[in-house]
Every structure is written in structure tokens, then in C-alpha cells.
């Protein structure tokens, strides 16, 4: 076994690094300098992760489609994002003549800034959280919801029908799934008894027989996680819910009129939203930075957090390579007629779990309720569908 001090140092390496760097400054400056340092770390790290993810996504999608994927720029094509970055920086920045210039300029900034704000409350390791807000989850959702504003700003200010339609779709979709996202997260708050993300992680960082108390390993947690995953996919406008930028009908959706670096910012914002919402999912249901087995607790906590995050990203990419895009009415029906009732039912199940107390009964009852509800709702959905040749009511 590795020596205890070494384990603790590797676990806290970034915290110690920050303290050492801040130690050079006078005591009165230290808190502010610490925050600036943490912000710089977040602002530096996640764009790098974004660059890496874009090339890995393209390579992964290529492999899913039995292609090779980008392999020209640098070793294994890993410098592709650099080439893309240079390209987007040197491109002409076009603003439509009839656009609202101020809003058009602000939209990508608002998107990126609000997305970055979400990282502030996420615990990325033991003692590694920028601001430990008591209502961290609330803050996160407040920030997450304002990305919709940025998207609508982009669509509205462009004065382009495709942009506007894309933005309308995006807002409709994001508001619909925002409800499901919140309700699926509420079960965690009910169980942990706190909105603070550090407390939620601490509640899951316990082990019975070597296995963690992650919320995904309970019936309501699994159902909640699945609903959360569906809602996040829609919330980040990822395939199969990428209707706002449906190329086949809307050119590029709300960023049709963006070019050059502003487009790159939108791209960055989308991926950052994906990272932050994956990180939140890991925090809520997958135990945040806690290790999956008690004998693996010697591995630094931040490694666990980022592996869970990248695993979620991999699933996002996998889903994108598998599923075709939904239709707008299917998307809305799915949100309001399936995901939302299931999350509401999940709240009841979580309450039942709480009041049934320890024992096997709660496992059986909670699982049974969720499975029966799932089967019944799926059957009802299917009955309502009329597959077959399209019939026209008025044109004949």
C-alpha cells in the first residue's frame, strides 16, 4: 500500500499548489488571489478539455461509422483543434446588416460566461470547489437556465428566419426539459437533505461492504439518473435532441449568422455546458469525486471526478453516433407525456423509500412501482401512435 502522506498529497495536490502560490502574497490579498487562481484554472482547463473532446468525438464518431476520423494534423490528428482554432480566429466576422449589433455581439459572451459560472459550485475533488454555496444546486440551475437567454438573444438579434426558428425550438425544448431536469434532481436533494453540492457528495461518499452509497444504486436514483440523462441531452442540444440546429431544415439554427470566433464561442459554450452538466450529474448520482470501491480510495479524488465526467461525454458521443434526430412534436410529447410524469412519480417513490425505512421491502416496492409505471406509460404511448401511410384530412 502506498504511504498515507503521499496519498493525501496527491489527492490535495492542486489545493496545496494554490496555497503555496497564494502564500507569496500579503495575507489581505490571499482570499481574492486564491479565487482568481481557481477561476484561471477552470477557465484554462475546460477549454483544453473541449479541444481534446472535439477531436476525440470526431475520431469516435468516425470509428462508430467505420471510418478513421481526422488523422492529418499532428500525431494521430491530435492537433486538429489547433488548426480549427486558427481557422476560426482568422475567419471574417460577419454581422448581418439588419442584425441588432449589440445583442448579436453579446449573445456568445453571455452563453460562455453563464456556462462558466456553473463550474463555480461543482466540487471537482475533495476540497476542490471554487465557492461552496449552501444552495449550490439552485445557483447551478439559475446559471444553466440563463444559457437559454443567450441562445434566444442569438436567434432574435440575427434577424434571420432560420436563426429565429432555431432559437424558438431551442427555447421551447430547453424550457420543457428544464422542468424534468430540476424534478429529477430534486430526489437527490430530498435524500441528501441539502442543496449544497459538497454535502450531496459527502452523503454518497460512504461504503458498505466495499460498495459506495451512490444514489444511482437505488431504484429512485437509477430512474432519476436516466431522466436526468435524457433531460441533459435535450438541455445541451445534443443528438438525438439537436433540433435547434437541425442542418436539414434550419441551416445551423440559432448560430446561422455567426462566423469566425463568435461561432467558435458558441461551439465552446455548448461543449462547456455538456461538461458542466455531466459534472453535475456525476455529483448528484455518481458520487462526485468518491471512488467506486472502498479499496480504490487511494486514487486522487479529482481523477475520479474527471473520469466520471469523461465517461458521460463518451456516452453523449455514443448516443450521437447511434440515434437519429427526433421530430419537434415527438420531442415535446416525450418531455411532457413521459419524462415529466416519470420524474413526478419518482418524487413519490423517493418519499416512499424514505418512509419505508431500512429493509428489503423498500427495494421491492420502489422498483415495482417504477417498472409498472414505465411499462404502462410506454404501452400508452405506443397505442396512441398510428404508424402507417399518412392520411390527409382536407386534401384529397
Amino acid at each position, binding site marked *: 500500500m502506498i504511504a498515507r502522506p503521499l496519498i493525501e498529497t496527491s489527492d490535495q495536490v492542486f489545493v496545496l499548489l494554490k496555497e503555496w502560490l497564494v502564500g507569496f502574497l500579503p495575507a489581505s490579498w490571499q482570499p481574492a488571489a486564491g479565487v482568481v487562481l481557481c477561476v484561471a484554472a477552470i477557465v484554462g482547463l475546460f477549454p483544453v478539455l473541449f479541444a481534446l473532446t472535439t477531436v476525440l468525438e470526431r475520431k*469516435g464518431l468516425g*470509428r*462508430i*461509422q*467505420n*471510418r*478513421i476520423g481526422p*488523422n492529418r494534423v499532428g500525431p494521430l490528428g491530435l492537433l486538429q483543434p489547433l488548426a480549427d482554432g486558427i481557422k476560426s480566429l482568422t475567419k471574417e466576422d460577419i454581422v448581418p446588416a439588419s442584425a441588432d449589433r449589440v445583442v448579436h455581439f453579446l449573445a456568445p459572451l453571455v452563453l460562455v460566461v453563464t456556462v462558466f459560472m456553473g463550474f463555480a459550485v461543482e466540487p471537482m475533488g475533495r476540497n476542490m470547489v471554487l465557492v461552496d454555496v449552501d444552495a449550490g444546486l439552485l445557483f447551478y440551475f439559475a446559471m444553466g437556465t440563463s444559457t437559454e437567454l443567450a441562445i434566444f438573444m442569438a436567434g432574435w438579434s440575427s434577424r434571420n428566419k432560420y436563426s429565429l426558428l432555431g432559437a424558438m425550438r431551442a427555447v421551447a425544448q430547453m424550457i420543457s426539459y428544464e422542468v424534468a431536469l430540476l424534478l429529477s434532481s430534486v430526489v437527490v436533494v430530498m435524500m441528501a437533505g441539502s442543496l449544497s453540492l459538497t454535502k450531496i457528495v459527502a452523503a454518497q461518499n460512504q461504503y458498505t461492504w466495499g460498495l459506495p452509497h451512490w444514489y444511482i444504486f437505488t431504484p429512485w436514483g437509477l430512474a432519476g439518473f436516466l431522466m436526468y440523462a435524457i433531460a441533459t441531452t435535450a438541455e445541451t442540444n445534443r443528438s438525438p435532441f439537436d433540433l435547434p440546429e437541425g442542418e436539414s431544415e434550419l441551416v445551423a439554427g440559432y448560430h446561422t449568422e455567426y462566423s469566425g470566433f463568435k461561432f467558435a464561442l458558441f461551439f465552446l459554450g455548448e461543449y462547456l455546458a455538456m461538461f458542466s452538466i455531466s459534472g453535475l450529474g456525476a455529483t448528484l448520482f455518481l458520487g462526485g469525486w468518491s471512488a467506486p470501491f472502498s479499496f480504490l480510495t487511494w486514487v486522487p479524488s479529482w481523477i475520479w471526478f474527471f473520469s466520471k465526467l469523461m465517461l458521460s461525454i463518451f456516452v453523449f458521443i*455514443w*448516443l450521437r*453516433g*447511434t*440515434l437519429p434526430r427526433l421530430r419537434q412534436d415527438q420531442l415535446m410529447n416525450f418531455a411532457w407525456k413521459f419524462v415529466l410524469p416519470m420524474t413526478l412519480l419518482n418524487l413519490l417513490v423517493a418519499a416512499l423509500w424514505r418512509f419505508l425505512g431500512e429493509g428489503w421491502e423498500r427495494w421491492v416496492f420502489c422498483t415495482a412501482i417504477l417498472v409498472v409505471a*414505465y*411499462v404502462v406509460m*410506454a*404501452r400508452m404511448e*405506443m397505442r396512441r401512435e398510428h404508424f402507417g401511410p399518412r392520411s390527409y384530412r382536407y386534401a384529397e
Partner: protein
Amino acid sequence: MFGEGILKGLAETARNFFGSFVSAERLTTVEYPEQRIAPFEAARVFPFLVYDGEDPLAGLRCVACQICEKECPPQCIFIVKSSDKKPDFVGKPQNYPVRFEIDISVCMSCQICVEVCPFDAIKMNTEFELSTGDRFGGLLLNLDQLVKPNEYYHRIHPAGAAEVDARLAGEKAKAEEKAKAAAEAARAAAEAAQAKAASEAAAANTTGEAGAAKTTEGVGAAKAAEETGVAKAATGEAEAKAASDAAKAAAEVASQKQPDQEGRR
């Protein structure tokens, strides 16, 4: 119904993802600049002009008949016919193109020029790496860039080239035979004319002095006919009506300054 279709799809894509790392036959991509596939014989890109022998201009099969220019759907061919003639592969004097240009930015690779060419002079190339920095001049191929030896045609389209060669050899043999026959006929005609003139002269001698001038005329005509016949046999030229053909061609040269073509450039 319960989402098992999604799971099935996810399993399929996962199989593709991991399978592409272990089995090489899944990745069918040919990484082009380094790896290449030999062009297919039926491949066609842009046309080129075939010539026989060593000298591109002497052996050029094209006779500037301008059928391809007229048939070309996007009108990408531009030909200027020569005012003089050179012998073609059977030895018959033919015009040749002074300018032959194909604008490959306009050409749509339809192969209609190849289909309509009665002389097997224009064929489709398989060369496709034609990118250039000059999008006007660089994409306008002139005669020097278009001519390719028959050996090249054999290399890229072995079957088609063999068939064309067989056909051209047959035509040449037939033309030689015909020329020989024509020479024979001309000689016979000359002899007949001479005989006729001689008999006429004999008749004139009996009629008197006035006929003397006529006799000399008749002899001259017979001699001229004989000379042309001999000349034809010696050069191995084709049919006797070649002279009239040539006259027609010359008339065309005079009238071929078509104003619309000049305007197109």
C-alpha cells in the same frame, strides 16, 4: 417499445467502434495521397487527343471536323481548323486543328465528344489530379496539353485501344486497296481517252485543215488525264473524288470564321 431498440442500436454502434480497432476489413478507407487505387478502365475524367507515332502534330488523328465542338453539351471545346492539309494515317490529305482547347472547368465529363468522333481521335483520360493555382488559364487545356501518344491510350484503356487499333488498321488496308483500284481505273480511262483522241485526229486529218487545231487540243486533254492518273497511283491517294472533297474543304475553311465562337472566348 420499452427502449430495447435504443439498446440494440447502442450495441451495434459499440460493436462498430471496437470492431474498427481490431478488424482491418471494417475500415475501408483508402488514405488517398499515400495509398492509391489503380484507376478503373471505365473511369473517365476529361478528354485528351490521341496521336500515332512519335510526332504529336504529324500523327494527330484529329482532322478538325468540329463534330465534337458542335455536339459538346456545355460547349467547352474550341477548335480552329487549319487552312492547309497534311496526310492522315491512310495518306489522305486532311485538315488539322491549329488550336484545340478544352475548358475543363466547363467540361462535365459526359464522353459525348468521344462517342461522336468518327476518327477515334478524342478519348477520355483517367488523370484526375488537375488542380491548379490559376483558375482561368490553368483550367483551359490547349493542344500541347491535350495530345497523348497512342501508347498512353493503350496503358489506360487496353481493351478500348486494341479495338480502335484493329479498326484503324482495317480502314487503312481498305483505303490502300481502293487507291490501287482507283489508279487502275484512271490509267484505263487515260488510255481510252488517248485512243479516242487518236481516232479523232485520224478523222480530222481526212476532213482537212480546219481540224488540225482540234487534234492538238484532243491530244493535250488525253495527256493531262494520263498524268493525273499516274500521279494518283504514285502517291497512293484515295478515291478519285478526293479532289472535289478538297475543294469543298477549302470552301469550308473560308467560311468557318464563325462570329459566335469568337464571341464566346
